[in-house]
């Protein structure tokens, strides 16, 4: 358990995101668990991350708050638990775990260029299976990423992939997209493809271009032709009607700079704009003669309009997003921005003349791609790296990124503040000077501690550093404002550096802990009974004893290296009884002095009248305090009165705090015990007895001389009589079935049919009998 270690430098924050384009997500496992007073960071990827946290305990309201501050100037995350529960507030055990679903803002203005962590991530993400990367598109993405990142140890897939490429190129059933992907892979792998194969494809593609109607048709066929031209050094490969094709692609554009996929699709898309720009660039490069400048001018105008719709994050990152969300396969901000950047770079390479794009938006796009960190998805990774490569080589303006290897400077070790300036892919920047415009404390924004200082350059490590901090710089957090000035005035047109970069820097140092003492006081007079000096930096083993009429006082002073008062984020006193019941008290300060007086008379109830030995533990911690401590001071033997009957009981203590989150005890269901049933013989006997009255009934009938003489003799009434009895029997049988297996609905349905039948035949036979008897009477 690592308690507030300032040696753990709050550095840059590059969290990998599994969501394409989303920049502000923790990795899935990035949950932070805070057991008791310490920190446990459960995510391996979080372990190297900086963290600063602040706990707020309010004993009156019983609110525990925690703000977690990851990295630099950041959004504070507050989470409150146990509101209104006084006991919870008293005991930090009440918030053993705080899982913060944090959405962290990327370090406000610090973006790290692509580094070796990206290279190792690329090798992890693009892993060939069975000698290939899957489809040709995926293969291209993998190979292109390796090429940009300059990875030499890449897996060798050329044999298998070249086979797939030549198969795709040789097949007559390949679509323009297949050809395009195959040619893209071939542009990297340079497989040995027969010249005749290309001839065949060229004629097919030329036909496809002239017959194309949708944007993607143009993109793939024109793109394939362009790739063939690059790969075969065929100088005479031209589009027959370049201007016509240019016009038909341009005809799909919208007034706001976005493009439609086809003329019968009214939805316009930013993603399509990127594709269209790329296709137009290919058309221009394939044109046999110069394309009309006015048409290129209108496309440039479209690009400027497209950049008006760019969106912005608070930290200076710019990105494109699709406005229409209900499109199937909505590309997301990363893919959209990536598409636009590719299109923009391709078009500006072929188009002559300047394009007055706002440079801060180019830099903002670079920040957007860098701000993603390391994407967890291969497609996102490719989009990020490819776009950054486009930005690095574009002809409009190349972004330069200012980054800091460490945003923590230890005053004790006399560390220098170092700054790096690189291009987005981490290569060397042109000669330049980094100036520290001003630096100010986060608590007092108006007073600068340093102003207008030029940083020295270390050519060996390629870093700019601030040699000496003024003595007035104390521990704490500061905002440093940097400015990059290019030496060469020619470079000022090529590179874009941004105006000012604000960086939060933590100055850490040793905080002097002095005049630490612990004393037992008499309640009424306040006279000191026992007093011990403490050396909080070393070991202490104080043994005190007190009763409920006395007080315990603990006090110490905190002084920064510059001699001013220091207020740490955390200052807690913890009393732990032998039975593991814990009580946490917040230390309050007045100036330099921290003091707490525990009046046991008022605390007896809170201490649950538990007499005996209490261990005393003191916590003083802060992110900028290099000697944060969690020290056991000793113990106090308390003699408290007997608990009255109605006193609250101490809460049951959890042996292992983590067991609370373990599996719960299995719940076994108890069913009601079955009723006692009578012996079977008895039941059977009575079932037999039931027959006795029936037999008696039959005997009685015989003795009465019952006969069936009244049964109708003529055939029709006889048939109705039989049907009547059969009907009654059927209804009774239905009832038996209802009892045994049928449900009420089926029974009622059947009964309604049987009932109607029974009514009919019953009516017929009974009216027949009635008429017969009335005839008899009258006769």
């Amino acid at each position, binding site marked *: 358990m690592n308690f507030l270690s300032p040696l753990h430098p709050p550095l840059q924050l590059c969290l990998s995101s599994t969501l394409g384009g989303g920049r502000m997500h923790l990795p899935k496992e990035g949950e932070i668990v805070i057991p008791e007073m310490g920190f446990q960071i459960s995510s391996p990827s979080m372990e190297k991350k900086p963290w600063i946290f602040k706990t707020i305990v309010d004993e009156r309201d019983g609110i525990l708050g925690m703000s977690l501050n990851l990295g630099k100037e950041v959004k504070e995350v507050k989470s409150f638990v146990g509101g209104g529960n006084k006991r919870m507030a008293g005991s930090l055990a009440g918030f053993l775990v705080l899982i913060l679903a944090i959405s962290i803002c990327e370090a406000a203005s610090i973006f790290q260029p692509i580094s070796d962590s990206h290279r190792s991530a690329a090798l992890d993400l693009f892993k060939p299976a069975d000698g290939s990367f899957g489809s040709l598109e995926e293969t291209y993405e993998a190979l292109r990423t390796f090429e940009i990142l300059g990875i030499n140890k890449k897996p060798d897939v050329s044999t298998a992939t070249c086979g797939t490429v030549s198969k795709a190129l040789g097949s007559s059933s390949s679509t323009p997209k297949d050809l395009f992907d195959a040619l893209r892979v071939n542009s990297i792998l340079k497989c040995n493809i027969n010249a005749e194969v290309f001839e065949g494809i060229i004629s097919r593609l030329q036909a496809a271009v002239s017959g194309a109607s949708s944007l993607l048709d143009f993109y793939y066929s024109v793109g394939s032709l362009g790739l063939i031209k690059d790969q075969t050094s065929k100088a005479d490969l031209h589009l027959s009607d370049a201007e016509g094709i240019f016009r038909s692609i341009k005809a799909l554009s919208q007034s706001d700079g976005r493009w439609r996929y086809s003329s019968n699709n009214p939805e316009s898309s930013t993603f399509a704009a990127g594709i269209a720009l790329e296709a137009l660039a290919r058309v221009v490069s394939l044109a046999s003669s110069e394309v009309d400048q006015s048409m290129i001018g209108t496309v440039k105008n479209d690009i400027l309009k497209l950049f008006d719709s760019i969106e912005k994050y608070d930290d200076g990152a710019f990105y494109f997003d699709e406005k229409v969300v209900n499109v199937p396969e909505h590309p997301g901000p990363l893919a959209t921005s990536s598409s636009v950047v590719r299109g923009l770079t391709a078009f500006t390479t072929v188009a002559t003349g300047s394009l007055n794009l706002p440079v801060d938006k180019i830099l903002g796009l670079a920040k957007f791609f860098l701000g993603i960190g390391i994407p967890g998805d291969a497609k996102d990774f490719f989009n990020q790296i490819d776009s950054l490569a486009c930005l690095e080589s574009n002809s409009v303006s190349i972004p330069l990124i200012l980054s800091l290897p460490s945003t923590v400077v230890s005053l004790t070790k006399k560390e220098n503040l170092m700054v790096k300036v690189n291009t987005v892919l981490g290569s060397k920047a042109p000669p330049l000077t980094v100036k520290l415009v001003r630096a100010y404390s986060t608590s007092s924004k108006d007073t600068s501690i340093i102003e207008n200082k030029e940083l020295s350059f270390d050519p060996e490590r390629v870093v700019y550093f601030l040699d000496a901090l003024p003595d007035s710089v104390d521990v704490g957090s500061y905002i440093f404002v940097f400015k990059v000035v290019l030496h060469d005035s020619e470079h000022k047109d090529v590179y874009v550096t941004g105006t000012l970069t604000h960086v939060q820097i933590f100055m850490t140092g040793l905080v002097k802990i002095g005049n630490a003492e612990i004393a037992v006081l008499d309640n009424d007079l306040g006279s000191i009974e026992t007093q011990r000096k403490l050396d909080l930096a070393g070991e202490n083993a104080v043994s005190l004893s007190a009763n409920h009429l006395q007080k315990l006082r603990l006090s110490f002073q905190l002084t920064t290296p510059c001699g001013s008062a220091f207020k740490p984020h955390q200052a807690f006193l913890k009393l732990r009884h032998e039975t593991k019941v814990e009580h946490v008290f917040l230390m309050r300060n007045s100036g330099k002095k921290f003091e707490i007086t525990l009046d046991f008379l008022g605390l007896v109830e809170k201490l649950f009248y538990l007499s005996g030995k209490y261990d005393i533990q003191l916590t003083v911690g802060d992110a900028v305090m290099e000697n944060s401590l969690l020290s056991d001071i000793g113990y106090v033997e308390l003699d408290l009165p007997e608990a009255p009957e109605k006193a609250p009981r101490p809460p049951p203590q959890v042996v292992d705090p983590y067991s609370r989150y373990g599996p719960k005890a299995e719940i076994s269901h108890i069913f009601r015990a079955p009723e006692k049933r009578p012996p079977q013989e*008895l*039941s059977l006997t009575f079932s037999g007895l039931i027959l006795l*009255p029936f037999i008696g009934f039959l005997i009685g009938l015989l003795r009465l001389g019952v006969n069936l003489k009244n049964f109708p003799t003529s055939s029709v009434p006889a048939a109705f009589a039989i049907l009547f009895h059969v009907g009654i029997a059927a209804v*009774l049988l239905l009832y038996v079935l209802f009892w045994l297996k049928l449900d009420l609905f089926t029974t009622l349905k059947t009964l309604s049919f049987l009932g109607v039948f029974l009514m009919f035949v019953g009516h017929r036979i009974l009216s027949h009998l009635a008429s017969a008897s009335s005839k008899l009477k009258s006769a």
Partner: protein
Amino acid sequence: MARSTSKDAQALFHSLRSAYVATPSSLKIIDLYVGFAVFTAIIQVVYMAFVGSFPFNSFLSGVLSCVGTAVLAVCLRIQVNKENKEFKDLPPERAFADFVLCNLVLHLVIMNFLG
């Protein structure tokens, strides 16, 4: 005195029997049927007294089936009896149809309740 009482009782029973012999045989059948139903109910009650009333719904439906049948049979007897001037206009066939219908409805409920 005692002798005269038993004699009186004998005379009473004798007159009752001679009067009953004159009852039409159809009514006698109904009486027999009522007796059969009541005895069946009594046997069930005795059974319950032995073993307890655990499947109480079954016991109730069994007894009520018998009692209900007996009551319906008594109703039939009242309607069929020619001495009852009140039902003089009602043909016995109509009364029998009512009896059958009521029995079917009663037993539908009984079966539902039997469990």
